[in-house]
């Protein structure tokens, strides 16, 4: 008996030692991540500093971006990033929710994994390929069919008017939607699958129809997770560079029409960094990157706050 206790206590000590090792390892990694983030933040700020010293804070209030006259304002790009990402969410969220719910709740089981693989495959396509597809297929389609129809239907609204270029905010938003659909869909599938079946049965037993049972026993419990998935998709949309640069038209301009060319924070950096002539120009481009980082952080914190609310009463 006493031997047994002795053996056990040794084992406990060993466990404690390996636990300590493990915890310290995790601590180290966490600290490294924080340092890495802080250094990116500091780097971006320091490289943008020449601009702030020269222009003050007008950079954040100015819509004009003109390297030839050394006037730099970020607002047009903020607008481009936010609007293209918003358009992306507008299309991606319903499609992703719909397919995740279909695959987890209604689809015959033997079809689930092939369809899922196809969706996951979409995530593996390089963004430059999406860009090419956007230029050669999507843009002409929008130019020839979508814009004429939409502007014809809404003669009074400014959103769909203007000359049809094919390349612009709307096309960029659509490409972004296609790029973030796999992300949002696959995470949502995981979330809906993780909701225990007994809730749905509970709803059914109360006399709920299929749709009501899905609503109260699948969507509602999964809502916080789905919002997290959407946030991840939004993050990707705001930072996406290659495909957007190829289809957005690249013009630093805030136009009331969704079909006019625009630029995002990411696309202007990609476009101009290589040929940034003056010091001020390159400082401004890092300042754009700095702004993108700040806005991404803001969106993430905002999303977290909303997600917390959706966790429901605790």
């Amino acid at each position, binding site marked *: 008996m006493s031997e047994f206790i002795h053996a056990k206590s040794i084992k406990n000590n060993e466990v404690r030692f390996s636990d300590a090792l493990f915890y310290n390892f995790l601590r180290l990694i966490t600290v490294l991540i924080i340092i890495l983030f802080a250094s990116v933040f500091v780097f971006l700020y320091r490289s943008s500093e020449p601009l702030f010293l020269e222009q003050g804070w007008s950079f954040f209030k100015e819509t004009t971006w003109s390297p030839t006259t050394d006037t730099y304002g970020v607002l047009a790009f903020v607008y481009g990033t936010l609007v293209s990402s918003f358009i992306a969410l507008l299309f991606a969220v319903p499609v992703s929710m719909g397919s995740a719910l279909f695959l987890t709740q209604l689809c015959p089981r033997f079809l689930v994994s092939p369809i899922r693989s196809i969706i996951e495959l979409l995530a593996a396509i390089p963004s430059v390929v999406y860009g090419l597809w956007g230029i050669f297929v999507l843009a002409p389609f929008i130019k020839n069919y979508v814009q004429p129809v939409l502007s014809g239907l809404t003669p009074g609204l400014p959103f769909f008017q203007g000359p049809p270029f094919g390349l612009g905010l709307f096309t960029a938003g659509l490409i972004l939607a296609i790029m973030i659909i796999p992300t949002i869909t696959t995470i949502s599938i995981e979330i809906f699958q993780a909701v225990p079946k007994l809730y749905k049965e509970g709803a059914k037993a109360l006399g709920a129809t299929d749709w009501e049972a899905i609503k109260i*026993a699948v969507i509602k419990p999964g*809502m*916080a997770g789905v919002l997290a998935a959407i946030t991840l998709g939004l993050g990707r949309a705001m930072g996406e560079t290659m495909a957007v640069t190829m289809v957005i038209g690249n013009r630093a301009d805030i136009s009331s029409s969704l079909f006019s060319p625009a630029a995002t924070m990411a696309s202007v950096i990609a476009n101009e960094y290589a040929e940034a002539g003056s010091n001020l120009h390159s400082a401004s481009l890092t300042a754009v990157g700095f702004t993108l980082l700040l806005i991404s952080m803001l969106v993430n914190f905002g999303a977290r706050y909303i997600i917390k609310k959706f966790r429901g009463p605790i």
Partner: protein
Amino acid sequence: MNKDSKSNILIIDQLTAGFGKSEIVKKISMQVTEKEITALIGPSGCGKSTFLRCLNRLHEETPDAWVHGKVNLNNKNIYEKGTDPVFVRSQIGMVFQKPNPFPSMSIYDNVAAGLTIRGIKKKTYIAEAVERSLIQAALWTEVKDKLKSAGTSLSGGQQQRLCIARALAISPPVILMDEPTSALDPISTAKIEELLHQLKKEVTIVIVTHNMQQAARVSDQTAFFLLGELIEMDSTKKFFTNPKDPRSENYITGRFG
């Protein structure tokens, strides 16, 4: 017999059910008396849950599930063509083995769920029904000051009574319970058994239980299942003191099961 004074609310006729190729419930016929507690007992895997889930048409929600036979609720076959399972389930409530209050819903919303599903919007009506059901489920005094907290924040026993209240809120004439106390401690179990006594004044209850003492304590009728067949059904007193079938006797005396 007291059966003459009360009517049979459920009449089950030659009910056979299973999954895919396997037949789990075999030609079961029985009657359930109104405002009584009918206990279903039998060894694990003998098809009690499957049978119970046929009574509110929940069985058919499982992939590959099938059913034949009749279940008459107030002389109307719930399996008749054109009968909406959603309607059937609004008449025959169910409480599950594991408490399953809806997550991310408050205590109040959980109890109200059956009403809101039905499209009832009137706030005063819902509030009354919630209070009445929680009182009926003997949970009111414990939760009346925290109706807005999460249903899942309650203890296991309280959660199960919450699920009973949720079932009661839409006032179904029949409630099915599948081992409602098997996940609970003895005190919570005693509370629910006491509750069943009160409930049967108003509701007909069919309860599956693994625990023979429980069946003896709470039920009026006992039905004994073995390998998907109904071996014997009788008033609980007679069944436990004087079983007719030797297999029932073996089971009661603990010789198998």
